[in-house]
């Protein structure tokens, strides 16, 4: 029988994979993709809690829709910034973008 803890463990695994990507990727688009993995881990948590803790009101699913919307906005702005960085530096490796570091 698959219970709440199974889904939460899956979500924790996916979250850790995403954190690893954020920590180790050099390519800025790779970091954005890892952030999408983080969003999906959180969404699995929301939907699992909505199914197992409070099935009458599906607040978790509604929150998931809001998270997906904000993720779309984040991807649009992030990719615009990445394209701008590419024009300035001819590359999207984040360790080369260090003009605010001294």
């Amino acid at each position, binding site marked *: 029988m*698959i*219970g*709440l803890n199974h*889904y939460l*463990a*899956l979500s924790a*695994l*996916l*979250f*850790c*994979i*995403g*954190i*690893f*990507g954020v*920590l*180790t*990727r*050099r*390519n800025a*688009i*790779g970091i*954005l*993709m*890892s952030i*999408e*993995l983080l969003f*999906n881990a959180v*969404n*699995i948590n929301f*939907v699992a809690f*909505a*199914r*197992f*803790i*409070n*099935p009458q*009101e*599906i607040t978790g*699913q*509604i929150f*998931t*829709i*809001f998270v*997906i*919307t*904000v*993720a*779309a*906005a*984040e*991807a*649009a*702005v992030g*990719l615009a*910034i*990445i*394209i*701008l960085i590419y024009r300035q530096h001819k590359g*999207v490796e984040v360790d080369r973008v260090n003009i605010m570091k001294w």
Partner: protein
Amino acid sequence: MENGILALVFYIFSGIIVGSGIMVVTLKNIFHSALFLVLCLFSVAGIYILLSAEFVAAVQVLIYVGAITVLMIFAIMLTAQLYSTSVRQSNEQVIPGIIIVVTLLVVTLVALSRTSWRVVSQGIEGQTTISIGKALLTTYVLPFEVVSLVLIAALIGAIIIARKE
């Protein structure tokens, strides 16, 4: 019998999610990791179906698989030097990253196993799409409007940031 099939489907989807997630963060070719991201997001939609959230699964496929990953692949085509394996894709933090991530995972799993949730035995009855639509236009109408404003502001901002001077 039905429980066994559900468990099998859950483990298949989980395996695909974890495997393709690892591919997303480790592959050298960023374009291949975008394709594995598509696979991962599709399997997450399958998990939503298992949790009887059909509408969220449809939204996941339409927005994540249909829009966000296409946007990512578009940006990869614009920026990356594809098939040039000379560019290193990971920085020198791989070993500390593995240590941090494994620690985080262990802590989370221990905390999970020690918490007792007040799980309700009954499932979600009927279609969730109807109740989501009603809730979005009655109880959650203000957040709904605010998030649409956020989206339009972000898209206009993205256009202004990315256009040429």
